[in-house]
């Protein structure tokens, strides 16, 4: 038995799935209100409800998607962090000053990981002391090009923790090192990600403790707990305690994974999750969801947190209808719920009710509201409702086209990719969310694509959460002239011979990925390991090749364990 819980902004959805047979069976599902100030209560309530009549000993796994970290950041319920950055030459680091205790330190690494300026230890000590004097005891230490050489970050960790042992940090509560966030190059994002990771660390761990405790109390102490990430994968709870930032914005990923679980997606496709206030648009290439190129942004701060590429637009069932001149507009504002559900202003759902595309809540109130609004704007009610629906479908279509154009226009760096690279041409539309079925026809007339609105879509997000697999990735950087190989995310480096080849690099990256899977007790997922990037450049000085510069990335492909289809 697998459990999936998606704690959303307004609702918490949960399912219990029976996987004892060859397929998946939805044993129970529920939707409860989210208590923003007490997410644990929402989780407990959802658990109690889906476990009614279920043998708790048969529950193997709970996958949890929570807005805890996201909310804490949005609402400013985060703790002060000491941010120590080593920017070296380049762009002005004070342009992305993240917080009060932000210290710019001397020292520099270049793009190949050569130390070009040393740390000034006295300066470091002063910065740390200044943070501590402000009562700060969690720290982010981030250097430019630390993913090529982590020396400075490691030195800072040593100074902060009072220990060289990775597991031991007796002088600080928590330290995040930039290179542990993975191998991708982007120093400001690395700094922001490390900062947020520290800022939510304590709150997140308190929540994790509480969840474990209530699972014990509910007789679920044996259950394996995973936490959803925004990239369409999960991480074990223990891992998330050190990387809480990876739990942000996992909601849209749960929905996208849900649709994968509910439908067999093989082609280039568009997924529309039409909710109350927004429509989330996701794009699949050959059946796989696309990731954001660099990572998701938290507020105005771009981060390195990998995320599925989901575009949110202000069209949903509760979007207010308005008229500007002769044009009917849908959203982007929401002025309360639909009239059918007690609101005071006509919405898209009211228009759909009027046209009898659906029957949500009190249809009569919708009819009256739409008619009155139309009369007040000297337009026939039929025309008004029809144009509102057309406008909603039109906006969704336009925004989807723009998204696909943007994806197809994404920079590539080889002639091969530029000329022969894949272009996305959607062949199917998948719809989910409240107004999805009602909008199926108008959307079809815009997109001219076959569409499918799967069963169970109301709890697709919870189903997605329950069935999502654990993902992890590894990046390797090797420089045969310097005889080093480095896996930043794992903090692992090794000396390599001058003869080290790209094949060696790929093999080593894979082996480290598989070893990591074994650590996570997930060796069975080994067949989902794949190399996503491998390049090798000859480094030449004068007319002689002096070495090779290699970069390899591999990952456990995101996916769901089984499908309901």
């Amino acid at each position: 038995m697998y459990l999936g819980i998606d704690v959303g902004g307004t609702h918490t959805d949960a399912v219990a799935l029976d996987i004892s047979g060859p397929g998946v069976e939805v044993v129970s599902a529920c939707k409860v209100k989210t208590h923003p100030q007490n997410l644990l209560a929402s989780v407990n309530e959802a658990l109690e409800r889906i476990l009614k009549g279920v043998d708790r000993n048969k529950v193997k796994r709970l996958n949890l998607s929570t807005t805890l970290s996201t909310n804490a950041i949005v609402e400013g319920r985060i703790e002060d962090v000491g941010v120590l950055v080593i920017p070296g030459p380049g762009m002005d680091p004070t342009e992305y000053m993240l917080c009060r205790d932000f210290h710019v330190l001397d020292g520099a690494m270049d793009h190949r990981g050569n130390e070009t300026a040393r740390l000034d230890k006295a300066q470091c000590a002063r910065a740390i002391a200044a943070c501590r004097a402000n009562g700060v005891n969690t720290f982010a230490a981030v250097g430019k090009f630390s993913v090529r050489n982590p020396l400075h970050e490691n030195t800072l960790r040593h100074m902060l923790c009072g220990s060289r042992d990775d597991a031991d940090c007796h002088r600080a509560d928590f330290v995040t090192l930039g290179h542990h966030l993975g191998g991708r190059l982007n120093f400001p994002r690395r700094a922001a990600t490390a900062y947020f990771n520290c800022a939510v660390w304590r709150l997140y761990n308190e929540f994790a403790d509480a969840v474990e405790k209530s699972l014990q109390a509910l007789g679920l102490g044996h259950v394996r707990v995973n936490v959803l990430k925004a990239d369409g994968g999960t991480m074990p709870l223990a891992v998330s305690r050190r990387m809480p930032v990876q739990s942000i914005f996992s909601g849209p990923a749960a929905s996208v994974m849900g649709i994968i679980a509910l439908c067999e997606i093989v082609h280039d496709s568009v997924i529309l999750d039409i909710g109350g206030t927004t429509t989330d648009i996701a794009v699949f290439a050959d059946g796989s969801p696309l990731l954001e190129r660099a990572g998701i942004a938290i507020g105005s701060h771009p981060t390195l947190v990998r995320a599925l590429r989901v575009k949110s637009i202000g069209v949903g069932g509760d979007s207010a209808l308005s008229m500007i001149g002769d044009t009917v507009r849908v959203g982007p504002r929401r002025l309360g719920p639909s009239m059918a559900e007690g609101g005071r202003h006509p919405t898209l759902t009211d228009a759909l009710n009027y046209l009898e595309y659906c029957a949500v809540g009190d249809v009569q109130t919708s009819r009256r509201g739409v008619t009155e609004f139309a009369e007040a704007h000297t337009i026939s009610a039929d025309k008004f409702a029809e144009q509102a629906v057309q406008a909603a479908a039109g906006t969704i279509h336009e925004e989807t086209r723009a998204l696909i154009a943007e994806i197809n226009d994404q920079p590539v760096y080889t002639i091969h990719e530029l000329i022969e690279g894949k272009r996305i041409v959607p062949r199917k539309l998948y719809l989910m969310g409240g107004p999805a079925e009602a909008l199926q026809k108008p959307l079809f007339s815009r997109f001219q694509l076959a569409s499918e609105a799967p069963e169970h879509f109301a709890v697709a997000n919870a189903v997605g959460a329950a069935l999502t697999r654990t993902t992890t990735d590894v990046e390797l950087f090797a420089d045969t002239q310097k005889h080093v190989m480095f896996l930043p995310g794992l903090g692992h480096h090794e000396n390599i011979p001058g003869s080290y080849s790209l094949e060696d690099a790929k093999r080593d990256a894979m082996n480290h990925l598989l070893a990591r899977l074994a650590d996570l007790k997930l060796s069975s997922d080994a067949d989902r390991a794949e190399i996503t990037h491998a390049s090798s450049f000859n480094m030449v000085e004068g007319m002689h090749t002096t070495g090779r510069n290699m970069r390899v990335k591999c990952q456990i492909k995101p996916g769901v364990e089984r499908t309901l289809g």
Partner: protein
Amino acid sequence: MRKAERSLGVVFFPAFDWAISPTHPEREERLLYTQDQLHEEGLFDVEGVREYKPDVAERTDVERTHFCFPDVDAVTTRSHLVSAGGAIRAARLVMEKQAERAFAMVRPPGHHAMKCVRGARGFCNVNMEAIMIDWLREHYGLRRIAIVDTDCHHGDGTQDVFWHDPDVLFISLHQDGRTLFPGTGFPIESGGPAARGRTINIPLPPGTGDEGVLMVIRELVMPLLEDFGPELIINSAGQDNHYTDPITNMNVSAQGYAELNSILNPDIAVLEGGYAIQGALPYVNLGICLAMAGMDYSMVHEPDYRAESLRQDPRITSYVEELCRQMPRVYHNPPESPQSAEHGMRDGDWWVRNKSIFYDTGGFQETQKESALLCDNCRGVLQIESQVGSVRCLGVEVPLDACPACQNRGHAIVEQAQLKSAFRYVQLIDRVNKQYSRFGF
């Protein structure tokens, strides 16, 4: 949130799968460290700075500008069409107002590619800036354009393409041709009879640093640009004036390049040479991007930068000062060039020059006879007879705004040539009727 003062589109295309040869300076690795630096700085997360993919230039885009013999496919690879397409994309960004400024950080370079192309010279096959300018003129009707070539080598190709064009002001700053490839670019080379003073060559002594180059930009180039009043300023942004460049002898730093761009304030920059790929390019490219975006570049330094060791010799400074005093004359009051076969001379109604061009990559010599019709009503039809070995080819161009007589003359020359079959290949560029055709096989 970091924000650019001016929006900047960067067409970044490192062509990681293309090299002239494995150890050639123009190889896969060239923009690798630049890519690393730009990505590590998070440049493309700055509000207003965006990365774009290049267009792929069409064969017509090349044939609008160059005479290519035997044909476009024979003298280009896909990399050249992508690089030219990168320049076109940069121009498109600016014209479509998607960005106020654009930088085509593309390779291979093109400023040594001349009007008539028979192969590769100076790492260049076709001329990216020239293709872009002609594309702009055809699609957006632009007329007056200034190109400032800050590559360390004389932009002899760009000079050749626009030699007869009075509406393009071409200014090249470079290490003195007596000390560096291609050995040209002297003040006496100032443009064809219809475009005298529209080519300005500023040779600088080896060892010139930030001080000298910035003095030239400030005191010489900027006043000329102001007088010329171009609709668009383009920087041929070669980076081989850098003090660590392996194939040149200048002393310019990343700061110097950034400041140069900040003063010049070009609408579009197109990368040219620059082969100190680890120690210079990452910093120079970053500095140029920041300067173009109107952002602070004061902290961009090479790790080994020491201002004292790059101080310019006072003798160079006084030489450059003198140059700044003398050179405006070439623009305002161009001297008659000496009449000679090499510099050009009158031959009936035609202005004729004979050229001998060495293609260093292919290792062969081309001899050219270039004739421009001296017309009172337009800049005159142009023909180039090109010979490599025993293969003779003819290119005829009816320039933009050619008078009806010159249009007819151009077509007549092509018909005659076909009748006489004295040429293996004949190409016609008719810019008035946008007709680009070739004959022979």
